[in-house]
């Protein structure tokens, strides 16, 4: 199953980092290929992501459900493909590190169905740069907000 974990230090206290991360609307747009999202409820939304897997690009829509919020600790979510046989899950985990925060981003996407093994073979290598790009942008934005305070 293609998955990736990326760890990054945020130069902001955990409270400020959590304040940003707790709301999906703040960060979903930093996912590479983000096109739009629609919030259906406090816990459910639909994301449209234009994925580029090296051989072609395609807009894929997902139903996203926030599984848990734990204050100053984590937000986890699951993804179910609408347009494709594809499922996944992700998490943003925070750990205080003095005045800083260690942010861990986890993302897992798995294609199902008959040709799933082939799609997963293509997906694997592209997840790492996606996770890095996302975490970098997220951290930059949190630090920008922190600096402006």
């Amino acid at each position, binding site marked *: 199953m293609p998955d990736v974990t990326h760890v990054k230090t945020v130069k902001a206290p955990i409270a400020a980092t959590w304040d940003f991360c707790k709301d999906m609307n703040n960060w979903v747009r930093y996912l590479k290929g983000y096109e739009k999202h629609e919030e259906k409820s406090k816990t459910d939304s639909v994301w449209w992501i*234009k994925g580029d897997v*090296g*051989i*072609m*690009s*395609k*807009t*894929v829509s997902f139903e996203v459900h926030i599984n848990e919020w734990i204050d100053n600790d984590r937000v986890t979510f699951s993804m179910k493909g*609408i*347009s*494709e*046989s594809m499922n996944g899950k992700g998490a943003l985990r925070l750990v205080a590190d003095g005045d800083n925060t260690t942010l861990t981003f986890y993302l897992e996407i798995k294609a199902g*169905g*008959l*040709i*799933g*093994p*082939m799609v*997963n*073979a*293509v997906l694997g290598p592209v997840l790492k740069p996606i996770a890095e790009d996302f975490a970098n942008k997220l951290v930059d934005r949190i630090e920008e907000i922190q600096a402006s305070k």
Partner: protein
Amino acid sequence: MAKKPKTWDMETDIVVLGSGGAGLTAAIIAADEGSKVVVLEKTDKIGGATAVSGGFPWIPNNHLEPKKGISDSREDALTYMKFIADGQVDDELVEAFIDNAPVMMKYIEEKIGFKTVISEMPDYHDGKPGGKVKGRSLGPDSFDSNRLGEWKKRLRQAPVVMFPTSWEEYEKSNAKADPRNLDYVKLATNMMAGIVGMGMSTAAHLLKGCLDRGIEPVMGARAMELIQDGRGRVIGVRAEKEGRDFYVRASQGVILATGGFEWNEELRKKFVPGPDFLPLSPPSNEGDGLKMAMAIGAELGNMHQIWGVPSCQVPGEEYDGKPLGRMTMGERTMPHSIMVNRKGKRFVDESFNYSDVAKVFCDVNPVAYEHVNVPAWMVFDQQFNDKYMLFTTPPGEAIQSWVTRADTLEELANKAGFDAEGFKATVKRFNDFARQGKDPDFGRGSTAYDRYQGDPNNSPNEALGTIEKAPFYAIPIVRGALGSKGGPATNANGQVKHVMGGVIKGLYAAGNAMASTSGPGYGGAGNTIAAGMTWGYIAAKHAAKQPRK
């Protein structure tokens, strides 16, 4: 015309423009004939339209046929090819193709190890004089792209699933009728290990042949103008590379192998009649060679023809920043599927060869002054979904949300936008035909080709199945093209003709960059690849014999 530069960035004997099957074959042959070769490729990828194709060379009268006990001959091949060309191609060009294609294929097999097998694929008009039910379409072996070293990452990736296996293995599995026969874990393992198949394999074999001869294509170099001497002889090319002019001198000749002009909207509208079409090739095929040749007086030919194919655009899919067109094959040829127009009427033998089927999109009602088969839809039922693949949706898996779906035929027609009454009558009539195994209206399932493209486990006819099990589905079908097939007219040496007579010395064309020697027709699976490779071979052979100037 570009002026001769004060200094050349590179000097060589033969410059090949483009790195598809035509260009790479030309480069290999020119090198083997003793010429120094430079290949200029405008993109950052090698392989052109060949890499995104099935990778088949269609070689009449080839050296593998006798080993399989298949009867073929020069006479049969000529008879058939002249039928395909429909009187629109000079006999000397048809003969040059027929005489050189098998020689080229044997040479390429022996010299670069590009192995192929005879596929079960019939010619596209197998029942016509000289046509064969088997023998001419040669399926490529797989290739370990690690053999390309650093060049592996330069190999163009096909935008749709190109199974990383040999054609022989693929065909034996009967995966075209039932994709569940393939071992996808093994295919994924192959993919991760760098094994490529089909068009990517063909392109990779040819690239390896070039690399082994010390020919490393110059990447990101887009040829813009041909440079002539005072007598009109082409002596080089001005390209653009990294934002500056890049001049390459060619002492023996320049070979245009830049692909078609299908991605150039202006040229499409100017030359190709009928409703506009959706290109399925790499978007870099913008007619560069055609424009350069026109600028120095080339005679043009076959400009109104395309390698057509009924196609579909899945919303949101892109390739190199352009809409990705998907070719219909099993979607169209398997049982339980038909195509209808806005009146809900069938209009063609859906299972027949894609190139000729695509021509019916140009049919016109002169009174209404409209294309009668545009728009069009492919309609199928749950039986199809249960058994066959729809693009990337395997049998039994949920049809994607962009496909129109309904529980009744009437509802489907109304949702999709075609006439419900006409459609219901069409389906009733077609279902009767399907049960009988005969299609008196269009002859679907009456040719070896139709039956090959159908389901061998379906009876009474491999190509015919009822549409009766809800839910029903419809997708829009458009005229697509694997490439354009017009360009500079050539003689039997591949030399580009001048519009005022004679040839433009030092200038050659091959593949989809030239006026196709198939005219309006398509001989069989791999006609495009074979024409590219063969004319690359012919042009290079001739150019390499020219005195260096």
